[in-house]
């Protein structure tokens, strides 16, 4: 396993770099990374996140109108509301220069934790302190399927906070990187799933970030695009001060992270260097 990973990483390292994107779009300049290595950039203090889920009916309470009325009469609350305690008291400190992998089973709260660090999900209790604005890599939610690729590129860039000049600068890069060619003039609903994923990734990765949060399954598409996008992620990792990476693919974690946090049912089960944590994770 380890040998295979090493080989993979060597293959990736040998690949030609993608066109450089020197323009930093982040508004506030910061000191060079080297001078600040080791200072805390993200502090998570006893974080609890509770989602409210509506309409999650159990066996006993089927969702018909009569039952709804009965429940309303009996409990006088909003009966179909369920609370999901997704993150239950997580605390850790991330430092400048860290690349932290977050692993765990489906539903263990990985993505939720990431969103909370990004400041997108309000904590139920506890707090997240950050240096600068952490950004989640991903722009899907802002795009509209009925619109052409061109319009979506502009919309996505604005949604990420670019200004018109930056959008004009990045536009051709995004089209080139996505490799969708003249399809950029067609609505995204006509794209194949691979083409759509490529364009979304190309838009999302067009911006540089201080604290970068990467959710899994970003590198999609065909084999060639997969390699291209992994290269791009690597480059973004190098540019960013602190990186959080959520992935099921442990090879990627082992290859890129210097620290791994293992989440289980919303709590940190283990936090340490990749070898130790991954070894323990693979055992269960």
């Amino acid at each position, binding site marked *: 396993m380890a040998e295979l990973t090493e080989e993979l990483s060597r293959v990736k390292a040998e690949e030609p770099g993608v066109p450089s994107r020197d323009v930093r779009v982040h508004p506030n300049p910061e000191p060079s990374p080297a001078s600040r290595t080791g*200072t*805390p*950039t*993200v*502090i*998570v*203090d*006893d974080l609890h996140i509770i*989602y*409210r889920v*509506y309409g999650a009916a159990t066996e006993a309470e089927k969702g018909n109108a009569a039952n709804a009325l009965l429940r309303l009469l009996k409990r006088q609350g*909003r009966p179909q509301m369920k609370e999901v305690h997704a993150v*239950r*008291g*997580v*605390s*850790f400190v991330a430092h400048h220069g860290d690349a932290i992998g977050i692993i765990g*089973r489906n539903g263990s709260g990985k993505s939720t934790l990431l*969103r*909370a*660090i*990004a*400041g*997108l*999900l*309000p904590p139920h209790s506890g*707090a*997240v*302190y*950050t*240096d600068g604005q*952490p*950004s*989640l890599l991903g*722009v*899907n*939610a*802002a795009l*509209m*399927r*009925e*619109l052409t690729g061109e*319009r979506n590129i*502009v*919309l996505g860039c*604005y*949604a990420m*906070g670019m*200004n018109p000049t930056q959008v004009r600068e990045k536009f051709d890069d995004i089209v080139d990187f996505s490799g969708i060619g003249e399809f950029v003039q067609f609505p995204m609903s006509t794209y194949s799933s691979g083409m759509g994923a490529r364009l979304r990734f190309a838009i999302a990765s067009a911006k540089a970030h201080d604290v970068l949060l990467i959710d899994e399954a970003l590198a999609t598409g065909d084999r060639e695009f997969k390699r291209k996008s992994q290269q791009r992620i690597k480059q973004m990792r190098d540019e960013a001060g602190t990186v959080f990476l959520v992935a099921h693919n442990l090879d990627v974690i082992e290859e890129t992270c210097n620290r791994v946090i293992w989440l*289980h049912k919303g*709590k*940190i*089960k*283990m*936090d*340490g260097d990749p070898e130790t*944590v991954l070894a*323990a994770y693979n*055992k*269960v």
Partner: protein
Amino acid sequence: MSQPESATADAQAGGPSVGTPTTGQEPLAKLAERYGLRRAIARPSLPVYLRQLWERRHFVMTYATSRNVSKYSNSALGQLWQVLTPMLNAAIYWLMFGVILGANKGSVSEYYPAFLITGMFVFTYTQRAVSGGAKSISGNLSLIRALHFPRAALPLAYTIQEFQQLLISMGVLVALVLATGESVTWFWLLIPVALLLQTMFNIGASLALARIGSTARDLNQLLPFIMRTWLYASGVFFSIGDKVSSPSGAGLPQWVADVMYFNPAAAYIELMRELLIAQHETRPYIWLVCVFWALFALIGGFWYFWRAEEKYGRG
């Protein structure tokens, strides 16, 4: 995953005590303060928030335009529907209320078509902006959970989307009003001012409803009824004044009519009628009422929305 194994794993890792708040060492909040870290989800001060919103103006505009474009992208006639929809609406209202129900009696009978169409178009603008605003947060949770921006951008974009539609509707409205025999007067120059005031009110109202709608899920089911009540209470199909004085009217007490006239939708409708239709009777203090509602809604709505800025996204 068995618990005993995990316990040994914890012991092996020797990492920090997990799952519980760290005690005994420096509190993390102090550490954060020492290194100048800020809360990831703190609410910015009002001036900062306004500046952030201004920086996102391109997003707001693009988002509004994109929603308008995508709305009709599946139909064969495409963007033509932006003109056709208000025209068809006007035709239906005229047929229903003017011809079949015969509502065109009383003091407005001479210019009933223009009276009705103006009321309908003005009311539709507020109605659509406010209903859209109510859904703007609850319907965009995935966007809110993925990207950073001042959340007020969403209700604002929904109102601007309706404003773009309104500009087209106004073209239709002016054409129809001219077709019914009205003539252009100097008062028409004040139409943009009236629209600006109404837009200010709409933005404020949709901001307020966006916050309410973000937690009160049932609002979306209730809104159609609220809107219909509002429609009937705003004198779109009939003249409120007639219901007090005229012999055929319902004989409402004067104060009920005053309250109805004071409601913002009725005020903006009356203002637009006054500007567009030369013989329409002028309401006293109409400008004052319109300015009051515009400022009250915009300032109050914005403040109310901003107060919960860090809570949107929890759903």
